[in-house]
């Protein structure tokens, strides 16, 4: 059996759309390439975390990155949002080669993320936490904000409306005013997703969104991820351990193992790939 990455055959957009049709997916929402990684290599001192990995993310899709522990998934996510700068290789975003930008510059470009270990402001309410996600869209300076009159007030009301729509989508109205530190884990994850959404990203990065959740919370989270993807048209790249979840919601999957890419394709293709089975699926690593 060939160990070549399985999706090599479907490289052009047209072919991809055709492939999607075969799988019964809705083709209209997947567009052209949004982000591309060419031969990325990332080293920490002598350790090579990512070795010569190339793949792309298309507009409107849900792209999963999976792999066993230490495969380089989180490093890859950190490369995508510019926290790490690869030693070799190129990152292309919206058809332009991206230089070494600071994370906040990348956030302004329209990339938002959530964290594996929740990173919310525990003492602040759900509403305020999500409002912080609007920060990059705030136009008035601190002086105006402090006065909170005229234009600043109008601006805040407009931002609040956006936030309320997110609260509605994520069904967290009942915890709007609750300090997030008092919320259970599953809800905190939802709030974090809300904060990332508040930035209105073009590309949303989710680092293990389902980790530590029970079945019901996972189902809810899947629904929210799909809703966000479908209704807001947000492109999503996610890292996830739960294979069931990945296979259910992802359009395409990249499989990493020890920093190398070993497969890339639709869930079905990945599932039947021998190297993937050996490296990840077939071997119990928990």
């Amino acid at each position, binding site marked *: 059996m060939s160990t070549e990455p399985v999706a090599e055959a479907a490289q052009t957009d047209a072919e991809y759309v055709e492939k999607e049709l075969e799988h019964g997916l*809705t083709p209209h929402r997947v567009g052209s390439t949004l982000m591309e990684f060419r031969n990325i290599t990332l080293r920490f001192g002598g350790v090579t975390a990512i070795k010569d990995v190339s793949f792309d993310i298309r507009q409107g899709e849900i792209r999963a990155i999976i792999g066993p522990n230490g495969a380089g998934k989180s490093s890859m996510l950190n490369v995508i949002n510019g926290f790490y700068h690869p030693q070799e290789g190129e990152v292309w975003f919206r058809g332009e080669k991206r230089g070494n930008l600071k994370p906040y510059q990348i956030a302004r470009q329209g990339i938002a993320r959530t964290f594996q270990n929740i990173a919310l402001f525990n003492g602040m309410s759900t509403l305020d936490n999500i409002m912080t996600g609007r920060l990059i869209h705030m136009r008035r300076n601190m002086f105006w904000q402090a006065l909170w009159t005229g234009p600043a007030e109008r601006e805040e009301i407009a931002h*609040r*409306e956006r936030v*309320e*729509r997110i*609260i*509605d*989508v994520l*069904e967290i*109205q*009942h915890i*709007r*005013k609750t300090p997030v530190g008092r919320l259970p884990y599953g809800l905190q994850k939802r709030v974090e997703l809300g904060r990332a959404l508040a930035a209105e990203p073009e590309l949303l990065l989710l680092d293990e969104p389902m980790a530590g959740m029970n079945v019901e919370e996972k189902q809810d989270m899947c*629904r929210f991820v*799909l*809703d966000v993807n*479908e*209704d807001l048209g947000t492109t999503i790249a996610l890292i996830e351990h739960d294979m069931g979840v990945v296979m259910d919601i992802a359009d395409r999957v990249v499989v990493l193992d020890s920093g190398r890419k070993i497969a890339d394709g639709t869930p079905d293709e990945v599932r039947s790939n021998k190297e993937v089975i050996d490296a990840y699926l077939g071997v119990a690593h928990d």
Partner: protein
Amino acid sequence: MTQQPERAVTDDTFPKLLLANARERGGRYAYRYKEYGIWQSWTWAETAEQIRALALGLTKLGLEPGDSLAIVGNNRPHFYWSMVAAQMAGATPVPVYQDSVAEEMQFVLDHAGVTFAVVENQEQVDKLLSVQDRLPALRHIVYCDPRGLRNYDHSAMHPLEEVQKIGREAEAELSAELEKRVAAGKGSDPCVILYTSGTTGRPKGVVLTHDNILVTSRASADFDRLTVTDSMLSYLPMAWVGDFIFSMGQAYTKGFCVCCPESPDTMLADLREIGPTYFFAPPSIFERLLTTVMIRIEDASAIKRRIFHHFIGHAKRCEAKRKARASLSLGDRAQYALGELLVYGPLKNVLGMSRVRVGYTAGEAIGPDLFEFYRSIGVNLKQLYGQTEASVFITQQPDDAVDPDTVGVPTPGVELRIDGTTGEVFYRSPGVFREYYKAPEETEKTKTPDGWVATGDAGFMDERTGQLRILDRAKDVGKLADGSLFAPKYIENKLKFWPNIREAVCFGHQREYVTAMINMDLESVGNWAERNNIGYGSYQELAQNGDVYDMIQRDVEATNESLAGDPILAQCQIRRFLILHKELDADDGELTRTMKVRRSTIAERYAEVIDALYGGADRVLSEVEVTYEDGRTGKISGILAIRDVRTFAPAAEPARAA
């Protein structure tokens, strides 16, 4: 605000009432609904425009007179509008319980011949689509929340706003037709079909006419002097007749404002924000509210706790005096006023009941302590007794004669009759339903030709208060061997009011005396065990602990003491009881899914235990088969201790049921 004059009764249907409200009080708010964190409001004039657009849209899509339109979702104004819009187009609304599974929904929609369904969201749409092949009459689905529905086939599916848009565009074409249909409506037309969740067999569709609803609404609202300035929070299922009478019938006849919460989870917060003047809740909600308050009080500082308990104690004493119609001393009044300032007022504010003028509870028996707690802090909580078939109101309590044991005097227009032999309560009223939809035999069985309806409940007129008192389901009421009345559920409810008792089953029909099997409340008793350093490995082990038995015995004896003071049920005091080694469970068929005791199943499964209760033994070996959640079965066995308990001399001569 000036009081609107009572209008002529020519407005005999909801659509006509709507137009009258829009004309006479167009600027007053009719609906509020919290969306995106803000209360959105619609005046009667705006409401009329919204409903008209919806009615035109539905007509344009092909809703015909005589059709049925299903409504599935949590309370929101759009659903109430859909009901009246359907009526304008000549169709009958059929609200369906939003949590029913697809199969149940299919039965109701098919039985009612529903052609249009107005639903809340993707969840409900999915349910309908999954049974669509068995709903040949269903032609269009209208939804409120578009989330997740973008990629669905929209050939027969529309967002609600789009239907209204279609309606506004068809104004010129269809307005004459719509006006004709509204004018053709009359009071005897079906107003709504409500499906009752039958405890046995399939649900039945109760057809209520506009007359039924409007006459009953007017009478009951006048009884409580509800006016246009009142407001209420609609949060109970729309498929339940109570919501229809409160949020539709009384709101339309009196013109007051109906508020819908943002989501079911935010109900308590929304209640606080709205501060309704008219409030209905089943006992469980009142209990939940009180529990949340008590937990916070226990966490408060010692001084606050002492202030709280002191003034609550005082309020209870005052309430007892008021109930006994004794006058309060000046000192009592002064202290109550101080309590209002320090405790009762803030507490009512937290509960969202500062403005409640009329509060009702019904559906289940309410614990006297719970009931009196709310009354003592100044919430005018009352009881009512009703049925779907009666358009709710059979009896209700006047403001100045409230008692936790009784359910009130007949609502104006209602006649009551109590069967001499069985004690079953019958009623006749303008609210009596027209028929069970497509079930003439059932209708005949329930309703006599001259309009009397059997409630299925046994009760009697309480001589002391002149109010109706409900004992039990008529079929459950039995006789002890000496011929005195035995009402198991009544006694069980009394037992269940004790926090340590979760569930109880009483026996006594054609027996010498009454016995009880008790399920302790694991949470409450477990808490107690923890505080007293009593270790236990399981429910079974804790249930057989001698100290737990002592504690439950005290509760049973206190129950006996209160039964002894009851003229009818003094003979029903419990002589022997035991604590069961397992919790009664719906999975084992011992309870219904709504947690009601299934007597026959229990009598069968625990036959040897019941025999032992009536034998002389002080212990019994019990072994029952149980079903685990994953479907496996197993056996639970244990030796159960049986205790004899003290009984009390009856306070009065035993009387017979009227």
